[in-house]
C-alpha cells in the first residue's frame, strides 16, 4: 500500500531529537547499523536505519506500530560504527521514549519494580544462598536501607513518568 506523504508529519523528527535522538538527521542510510545488529536477524527485524528514515519522512502512525525497537540488545555496535555519528542506539532509546509517551502500554513494567525495590531483581530474596557463600544476607544496596529507598522514591516522584502514570508505580 502506498504511503501518502501529504499526510506525514515532519515535526516528528523534532520530537525524537527532543527525546535524545539528537543526531538523527545526519543519517545517510548506509546500513552499517543494520548489518551487524543482532536484532536485525529477527523474523520481524529491527532495522534502525529504516526507523530513522520513517522519522525523517514523518510517518507517525507507522512508527508507533514498530515495536521492533524493543528488541534492541543494546550492544551499541551500531553506534560504534555509524560513519555519520548518528548514535543509532540513542535513537533507539529515543524512539522507545516517544512510543512510551504516545502509548503508555509501551512503558516497561520493570519501571515499577525498580521504583518499589530499587532493583530489577529482588536482591533481598536470596539470603540463604548468599549466606552459604559467606556473603551478607542482604547486599548493601537500597534493598538493605529502607530510609534510603524512600528517598530514592521521592526522587523518582519528581520525574514526569511517575507523575503522569503514578498508578503504575503504586503512587498517586
Amino acid at each position, binding site marked *: 500500500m502506498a504511503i501518502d506523504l501529504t499526510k506525514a508529519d515532519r515535526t516528528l523528527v523534532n520530537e525524537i531529537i527532543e527525546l535524545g535522538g539528537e543526531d538523527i538527521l545526519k543519517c545517510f542510510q548506509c546500513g552499517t547499523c543494520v548489518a551487524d545488529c543482532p536484532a536485525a536477524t529477527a523474523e520481524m527485524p529491527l532495522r534502525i536505519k529504516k526507523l530513522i528514515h520513517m522519522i525523517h519522512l514523518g510517518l507517525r502512525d507507522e512508527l508507533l506500530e514498530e515495536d521492533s525497537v524493543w528488541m534492541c540488545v543494546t550492544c551499541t555496535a551500531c553506534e560504534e560504527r555509524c560513519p555519520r555519528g548518528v548514535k543509532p542506539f540513542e535513537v533507539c532509546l529515543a524512539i522507545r521514549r516517544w512510543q512510551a509517551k504516545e502509548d503508555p502500554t509501551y512503558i516497561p513494567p520493570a519501571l515499577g519494580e525498580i521504583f518499589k525495590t530499587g532493583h530489577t531483581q529482588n536482591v533481598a530474596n536470596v539470603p540463604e544462598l548468599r549466606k552459604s557463600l559467606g556473603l551478607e544476607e542482604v*547486599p548493601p544496596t537500597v534493598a538493605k536501607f529502607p530510609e534510603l529507598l524512600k528517598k530514592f522514591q521521592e526522587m523518582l516522584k519528581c520525574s514526569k513518568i511517575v507523575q503522569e502514570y503514578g498508578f503504575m508505580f503504586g503512587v498517586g
Partner: protein
Amino acid sequence: MPVFKYGFFLGCNIPAIRPDVEQAIRKTMPKLGVELVDVKGSACCPAFGTYPSADEYAALAINAWNISIAEEIGVDIMVECGSCYSSLKLGRDCLLRDEEKRKKVNEMLKVAGKKFEGKSDVRHIIDVLYNDVGTEKISRSINIKLDGIKVIAHSPCHMLRPSNVLGFDNPERPYMLRELIEALGAEVPRYSREFQCCGGAGGFKRRAHIEAVEYTKKKLDAIKEETDADLIVVSCITCLLHFDEIQKELTEKGKGNYSIPVFDYNQLLALCMGFDPKEVAAISIIPRDEIIERIIKS
C-alpha cells in the same frame, strides 16, 4: 605497593542471581591491592530497558543517585556487569556534557538530599585489572597455573562501546580480557566469531526468542567447530547468565550438545588463587565441577 580503592557497584543480577561472582570479586581484588568499599544504598544502574527507555530524566537521576553515593565516599565506582558500566558511564558523560540536564537532575536529587558533581568516575573491572593491577602482578598472585587449558575470552559489548565514552580497550578487537586470561597460564584460542555479541541483553531474547537463540548458537557453534575450548570466560553478568542458559536450552531442544562451562573472570582468578570453589564458583547451569576439578589439580 600502590593501593587502589573502589566503590564496588553490585547492580541487580550479581547479588540476586550469581552472588558467587560477587564473592569471587570480593575475595580476589584485595589480594591484588584493590580495596573494595560498598556503595551503600546503590540501586539498579538503571538497565537500558527500564527508565532509559521511557524517561530520560528519571534514568539520569538514577545514574546520578548511584554515582553521588560514590562521590560522598570519595571513590571511583568499579563494576563487573557490562550493562551497569555502560549505563552509569554514559549517564555520567551525558550529565557532564549537558549543563541543563545536570541542573534538572540535581533538582531531582536534591529532594533525596543528594548531589551529582561528576567527581567519581566509573570503571569496569577489566579496566581495573588490566590497567591498575596489570597482568604481571596477576601472574604473580596465583597459585595454580592453567597449563593446557583452553579458554574462550568473551569481552562484553558494554565494556567496549561506544568507545569514545566507554572505551579503554580496542572496541573492535578487544585484547585485555584475553591477556588477563593468558596471565593465568591458559591458552586463548581465536575463532571467527570472537567479537560477536552474545545476544543476551535487551528485549531480543524475549521478543524474538527463536532467532535470538539461533544468533547465540552461531557463536557457540563457531567455538565448538573452530576450537577445542574447555571453558568460556566473560566479564559481564548478563553474558554469563546468557551463555549458561542458552546452552541448556539448545541441548534440551535437541540442537546438539552444548556444555561448555562459563565463568566470570574473577571466578577463574579466584580458583587460581586457591579460593574455595564452593564460595567463588558455586552456581551454574552447565556443570562446572569437572573443569574445576581439573583446574584445582593442575
